[in-house]
């Protein structure tokens, strides 16, 4: 019984930490609809700035509180600067495009933090009062955890007061419901957004600095925090602060007991919970269906088949790829192969996101199933390469069909988050079923018999795969799919079965990604859990958004540009900052993506 009590309290303490970070994210999300990938980075900055401030202050509670508030204020300022300098310029860009910008910010901030504070973990020395404990049910319970347990509801109450009792709060809530209406009221929307972003960033910083007494400021915080914060926001319901707290409590307490009851499941528990909640309550615990935002419609542009200009460019590109073995060395060949795989991977995501209207944060799941499918077929059943390459997309397609059956009814960020949850579950299976998958050591030794000849296999399959996808997108099926995305009720009234079309597109997209994964496995001779990681899913998203979501040329150009950039910059110091800076520049100058920009030049 006493264990039950202390473990519940421990869960509530971590719930408060989770809530602080998630609250900022949900406020930003709800009002500006920006999927802020940099939120974890702001939290990390909070930890480092907090360390720098608190180690210079007297070590008593009053000064500590002051230092914490100063840190929150500092990150709020950084958040405001980010909003004014970057995000404000791209609110009119297609949905999720801001995500690309914030991803660039993640990269820049990661290197900036490394440069400013160095590579070492920076622990905040704990003064005696932070080490104190109280006896609860016969066990020692950290005093600071009790403080945290109180801070969560206090911040929640404070936010609710601000949002319901101040004019600013009422306007923000109105903006959450309907941006355009608030604009029509004559409120300076820009100021509103900047202040919301600053508030969110300040909360992230608060979360970062309040985590310091339990650990250290370190360079892994950004990525460790961001996925969990997303999960809480989505489980709680987009833009719902109360929902975020509820979700934080649910997940915090579940995790506290999970470490005891299911110690081996620490990697998946959170995502299984998220999947279950979203399947039962698609809009989260306290969320409601907000429908499509009005700005989405503006993002829809006419999709045209390739003109002579594009066909020429594609022809030149294909000729270059065909001649690559004569033109470049092994490194160039490796990059060329990666570009080809990335093209098919990005094109498959484009089918889902573009014509299908189903954004995905977990597309690497299908890539990984294809990669592992081929690798395991080859290794355990001695399947010859052609059969393994054929089997992989079938496996990935079947998996996509099974998962899609549950989730294609959802839309927007909720659907994207469910794909993420599923991808994390696949990832955890790859990591934890060591007997089958080799765990994080991966499946090794899956090389093609003739590596040089394999390049042409990859070329044929990737280009062929993209052409097949293209053909299907210009078939009656593809048009019906797009009709369902453009005007769902109109399409249904014309007798189009939207759900079935979306499911078919989901399956097709999964199968194509699976083929890309299988080709990748043979080109690298191995399959690893990193193929299924969140960052690989993000890579695909970046490629599609970078190229432009309006046409199939987008993901292809995006794949070439991103892979090329990444591979070229990886050899340099501070490559993350450079890559991030390039992405931010591209976002600012090509808000419709590279292909979208070329399209408008025509």
């Amino acid at each position, binding site marked *: 019984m006493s264990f039950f009590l202390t473990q519940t309290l421990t869960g509530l303490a971590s719930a408060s930490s989770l809530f602080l970070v998630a609250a900022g994210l949900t406020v930003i999300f709800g009002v500006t609809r920006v999927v802020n990938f940099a939120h974890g980075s702001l939290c990390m900055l909070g930890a480092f700035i907090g360390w720098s401030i608190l180690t210079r202050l007297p070590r008593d509670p009053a000064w500590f509180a002051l230092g914490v508030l100063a840190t929150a204020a500092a990150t709020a300022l950084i958040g405001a600067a980010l909003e004014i300098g970057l995000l404000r310029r791209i609110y009119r860009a297609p949905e999720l495009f801001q995500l690309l910008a914030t991803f660039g910010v993640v990269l820049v901030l990661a290197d900036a933090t490394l440069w400013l504070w160095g590579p070492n973990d920076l622990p905040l020395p704990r003064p005696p009062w932070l080490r*104190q404990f109280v006896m609860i049910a016969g066990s*020692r319970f950290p005093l600071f955890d009790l403080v945290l347990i109180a801070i969560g509801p206090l911040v929640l109450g404070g936010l609710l007061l601000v949002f319901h009792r101040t004019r600013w709060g009422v306007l923000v809530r109105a903006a959450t419901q309907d941006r355009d209406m608030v604009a029509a009221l004559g409120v300076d929307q820009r100021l509103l957004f900047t202040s919301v972003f600053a508030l969110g960033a300040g909360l992230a910083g608060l979360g970062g600095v309040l985590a310091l007494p339990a650990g250290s400021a370190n360079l892994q915080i950004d990525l*460790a925090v961001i996925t969990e914060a997303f999960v809480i926001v989505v489980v709680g319901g987009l833009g719902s602060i109360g929902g975020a707290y509820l979700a934080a409590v649910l997940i915090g307490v579940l995790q506290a007991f999970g*470490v005891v009851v299911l*110690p081996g499941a620490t990697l998946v528990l959170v995502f299984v919970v998220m999947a279950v909640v979203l399947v039962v309550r698609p809009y989260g615990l306290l969320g409601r269906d907000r429908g499509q935002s009005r700005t989405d419609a503006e993002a829809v542009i006419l999709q045209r088949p390739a003109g002579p200009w594009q066909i020429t460019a594609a022809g030149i590109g294909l000729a270059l790829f065909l001649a690559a073995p004569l033109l470049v060395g092994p*490194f160039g060949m490796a990059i060329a192969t990666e570009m080809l795989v990335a093209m098919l991977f990005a094109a498959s995501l484009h089918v889902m996101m573009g014509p299908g209207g189903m954004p995905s944060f977990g597309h690497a799941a299908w890539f990984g199933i294809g990669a592992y499918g081929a690798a395991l077929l080859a290794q355990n059943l001695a399947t010859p390469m052609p059969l393994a390459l054929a089997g992989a997309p079938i496996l990935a397609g079947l998996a996509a069909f099974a998962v899609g059956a549950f989730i294609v009814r959802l839309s927007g960020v909720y659907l994207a988050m469910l794909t993420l949850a599923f991808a994390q579950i696949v990832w955890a299976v790859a990591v934890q079923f060591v007997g089958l998958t080799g765990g994080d*050591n991966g499946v090794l030794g899956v090389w093609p018999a003739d590596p040089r000849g394999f390049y042409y296999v990859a070329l044929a399959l990737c280009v062929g795969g993209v052409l097949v996808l293209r053909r299907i997108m210009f078939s009656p099926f593809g048009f019906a799919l797009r009709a369902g995305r453009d005007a769902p009720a109109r399409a249904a009234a014309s007798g189009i079965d939207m759900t079935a079309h979306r499911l078919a597109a989901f399956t097709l997209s999964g199968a194509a990604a699976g083929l890309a994964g299988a080709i990748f496995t043979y080109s690298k001779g191995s399959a*690893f859990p990193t193929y299924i990681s969140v960052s690989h899913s993000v890579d695909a998203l970046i490629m599609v958004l970078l190229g432009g979501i309006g046409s199939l040329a987008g993901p292809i150009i995006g794949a070439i540009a991103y892979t090329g950039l990444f591979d070229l910059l990886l050899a340099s110091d501070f490559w993350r900052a450079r890559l991030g800076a390039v992405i931010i520049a591209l976002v600012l100058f090509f808000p419709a993506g590279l292909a979208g920009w070329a399209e408008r030049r025509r």
Partner: protein
Amino acid sequence: MTLSRRTLLTATAGFTGLAAPAISRAQTAAIRIGEINSYTAVPSFTLPYRNGWTLAVEQINASGGVLGRKLEVLSRDDAGKPQDAIRLAGELIGDQKVDLLAGSYLSNVGLAISDFALQNKTLFVGGEPLTDALVWQKGHRYCYRLRASTYMQARMLIDDAAKFGAKRWVTVSPNYEYGQSLVKWFKILLAQRQPGVEFVAELWPALGNIDAGATVAALEQAKPDAIFNGTFGPDLTKFVRAGNTRGLFEGRKVVSVLTGEPEYLEPLGDEAPAGWLVTGYPVDSVTDAANLGFIAAYKARFNELPKLGSVVGHAMIAGIAAGIAKTGSVETEAMADGFGGAKFATPFGPVTWRALDHQATFGAFIGRTALKNGRGTMVDWRYIDGADALPSDEEVKKLRPA
């Protein structure tokens, strides 16, 4: 803050200079080592490690190089992804024409490069990756490894752990291959040494995301006599803090792998635990000439104390130089055989590349943690040679593929 930035810039300067591709090379040109590591993913290890190998290269070249040729290191960042490491390995071999590959920190990256080396018949000298598979289950003639593996780390601690006489054990270790392998070996080896020992709870926090309070409470709940810990880095800091406040470690024996390494001990600050049995590197109290010489040279060059990563980087280059010198050429097949049996000096003392399984006999220090002047340190330490922490040759032969 200033210190680390300067270190970084120095390393940058050295790195850019080295990375410039050679236009033409004669037989007297430098021996090129293609080095790949997870620089951006784990900077707390890799930056001291880069200093270590930079120093070794400078020292060797100052004394005339190897076979009359200078050493040149071409360094690449794999960002922690095995797939990128494989591409970079291809670039280093194919475009830069390096003579051999070296490096890596994460086990899966090490295995990926090793598999690539086997496929392309190139020598790979792994520095840090701890997985047993690198030289055993997935071992092959083109792969050598420096660091003591998870088996060896567990084995080094087992005598002292068995002396505790503790009956009820709990384990906590990160939920991936390194952590699983450590716990597996520790359990097997301890049960052999001390029949009747009980493991009453196993906790597997996610790497980099430990729920420290809940983990500590769960361990406490199992009422153990002793704790075996495999967490490190930020997770370890959180674990130790939560354990200190909640009194988990009071009156209990703790065996903790890697905790004595400066990388992981320093961040614990004045909360560093006392009396834990750990593997590590007592950089502030070693007295032998080899270590002191290395530390002095390192301090002179980088103006800071070396970390364990620095030793690994330095010894890796020394081992490569010795292997090439013994072989007398940089031809891959010759090196694959020639490295076997090569002896080299490291800050930790003499080390041999075993011909049997291509594992180096590079050992580790084991000792107790203590708190001195508000900082963690290692006391009562002794160096255990890697050769003494390996299974019999027959067992090893069974583990390696034919």
